[in-house]
């Protein structure tokens, strides 16, 4: 009997909640992250969700919809009802799916809300590597790129792209890319001596750098990273120049109501400027970037072309 009363109370309570408020948002929002828990996308999406929750006054449920190299999550975001109650964290891979023939979805299937992060990778070698500077590596690549196994993530990922661009700039032959699932296995291959160079993001390599197991040769950023003032850019450290970054942003399905987009975009802009966000991003060494609404749309269009060109140059575009 006690149980039934409890259930009745709980049910009534739930009814009461739903009947209130007219304005957006009047019920919890779902935020789809196309990557698994524990990764960089998950971490950044969760801090954005936590801060957005405070701004909007409604719970934001972060849902990890991982798998298929993020195709599934991205597709799910694009296919959701465009009512503002399903949002998603879209990531770099979206600029590549349709070029690689993995999925027809592209940035045009989404309503851009705002960019909140852009990360640059770095070029790393093992501590005992013969390459003392990036110039050494570039020279070696120029001579015979197929003799230098390098890794960093999957085939056709942003790190592979950056490496292929480096090899192409150096005028080397085909890049010898050893694919792995993510950065951790690639670093393991680097420290165990199975590959000779790795392209990964700085936060992932940081502990191994501190431990003196690996050395950074250069950052793929246009300018030096504030957290690593000693690491030169590619242009500074060698006679070639390459800069490619990954990005993360907030978006919803296509055709969301304009006023919802505006309010979300404004809230995101405040969040990105907030101290909590800056502190979090600094502690994890993620780089903050912001483009709101339409500007984000333009940014995505530019990325799409840039990645398309780079993929074509690397010979990775699907026929």
């Amino acid at each position: 009997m006690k149980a039934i009363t409890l259930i009745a109370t709980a049910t009534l309570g739930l009814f009461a909640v739903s009947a209130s408020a007219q304005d957006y948002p009047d019920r919890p929002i779902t935020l789809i992250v196309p990557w698994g828990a524990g990764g960089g996308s998950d971490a950044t999406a969760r801090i954005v969700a936590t801060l957005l929750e405070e701004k909007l006054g409604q719970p934001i449920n972060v849902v990890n919809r991982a798998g298929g190299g993020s195709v599934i999550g991205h597709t799910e975001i694009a296919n959701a009802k465009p009512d503002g109650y399903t949002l998603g964290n879209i990531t770099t891979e979206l600029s590549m799916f349709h070029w690689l023939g993995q999925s027809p979805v592209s940035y045009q299937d989404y309503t851009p809300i705002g960019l909140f992060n852009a990360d640059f990778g770095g070029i790393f070698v093992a501590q005992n590597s013969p390459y003392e500077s990036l110039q050494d590596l570039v020279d070696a690549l120029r001579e015979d790129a197929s003799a230098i196994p390098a890794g960093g993530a999957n085939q056709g990922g942003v790190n592979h792209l950056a490496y292929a661009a480096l090899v192409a700039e150096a005028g080397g032959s085909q890049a010898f890319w050893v694919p792995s699932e993510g950065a951790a296995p690639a670093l393991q291959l680097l420290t165990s001596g199975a590959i000779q160079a790795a392209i990964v993001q700085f936060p992932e390599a940081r502990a191994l750098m501190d431990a003196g197991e690996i050395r950074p040769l250069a950052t793929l950023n246009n300018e030096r990273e504030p957290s690593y003032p000693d690491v030169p850019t590619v242009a500074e450290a060698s006679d070639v120049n390459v800069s490619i970054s990954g990005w993360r942003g907030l978006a919803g399905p296509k055709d969301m109501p304009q006023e919802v987009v505006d309010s979300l975009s404004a809230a995101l802009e405040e969040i990105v400027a907030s101290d909590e966000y800056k502190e979090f991003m600094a502690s994890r060494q993620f780089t903050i970037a912001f483009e709101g609404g339409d500007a984000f749309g333009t940014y995505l269009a530019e990325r799409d072309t840039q990645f398309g060109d780079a993929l074509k140059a690397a010979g990775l575009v699907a026929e």
Partner: protein
Amino acid sequence: MDTMMQALALVLNFETIVTILIACLFGLFVGAIPGLTATMATALLVPFTFYMDPIPAIATVIACTAMAITAGDIPSALLRIPGTPSSAAYTDEAYAMTKKGQGAQALGISIVASCIGGIVGFLVLAFIAPMLAKVALRFSSFEYFWLAILGLSCAALISSGGPIKGLLALFLGLAISTIGMDPLTGAPRFSFGSVELMGGLSFVPAMIGLFAIGELLRYQPGQENLVSNAKIRNPFSGVGKILRQYRVNLWRGSLFGTAVGALPGAGGDLGAWISYAMAKRFSRTPQKFGTGHPEGLVEAGASNNSALSSAWIPAMVFGIPGDAVTAIAVGILFMKGLNPGPQLFTQNPENFYAVMLIFLIANLLLIPFGWLAVRTANSIFRVSRAYLNGAIVIFCLVGAYAVNNSMFGVLVMGGFGLMAYVFHRANFPIAPVILGIVMGPLLEQNFLTSMIIARGDLTAFFSRPIAAGLGAVVILLWGLPLVLRLLRLLRPKAAA
């Protein structure tokens, strides 16, 4: 000594202790409900850690996961719904004990073995973590490949139903693991244009289907309660005697689990399987395995939790996380300024030792909390089976759904349930299917990565010292029974 006092002060204060207790309760709940995973729980804790001091923040993750993994053995033993791939290694053994009316004892064994295994893992972590981590860093894809083969061989060789059926079941799991987008090249495999299939079949719905739905399909209405003769009693009575009897298994499981757990990405899931296989191989009574025999439970249970502790070694020493839980933990460490790396041991040793103490406390708390959980869970024996089914199906439903927030998982669960029924009738073992699904990606990716590095040269698998050693063990494992069989064929002739 001074550092130790500082570390004690960091841990033994009101905030930290209360945090640990709450996290334990949360972990217990998450682990005991089938379908809720430790990863899910840890991800949910992250926003709370934003507002905590560094030590309590990391304490929540440690306490919650240690408790969740152990509590996962409860539905695994009592309802045959394993929560993690590692507890699937001994689900059938524990469930067989439950059927004999020894469910409480099975849980008591797994809790105490977990506690001891966890403490061994903690000791290793506290004293030789940096050394062990350095060894782990020398493992490349070649070594990982052999390790995966070793784990799979164990499963195929010891499974019930004979080696052919074991092999076929194992390769079915491996084949299933290839469904979906290939993580190395992004090529979609066997997805037939479906976006859901592109993500592959996740092991949680498969596991729930194979064990729980398969069991339900064999239910005969009017059948007696799950275990009518089970007495609600202290789950720990008699455990001490069993652990003394199988103390070799206990230590071997703990040490082995610690060793493989330190390898990022492989250890945790493999440890319990290989340990269970070892227990059977070296047992004086291998024929009792699978019929509710505690020996394998002791070894695999200890291995399981010690691997959980030592999985933190590469994460804390080099920032290389082995699974989602440690990945989240590495994030929290960075966020709180406790950057992983050797400086964690040198610059702020009191922080490091505080984290170690939390491991110890969390593992010790397994005993009282485990007792509580088993006492509560025991009441299901008083519920008639018909009603219990009604609750089980709901848990299966949400469990299969919640992994990917998709009804597709429910269909996958149903499909595997049917398969389990057929497999049971035909005496095919189902545990190797699970192991195949879980280890398939590890095996395949490391093989492909190695072959790409070696440009198709198979001898490369023996060109590195550790790889060659592991390879030799695998060859021995498969070759020894054949050699023995040959010898036995020859011997009678020689005698005659």
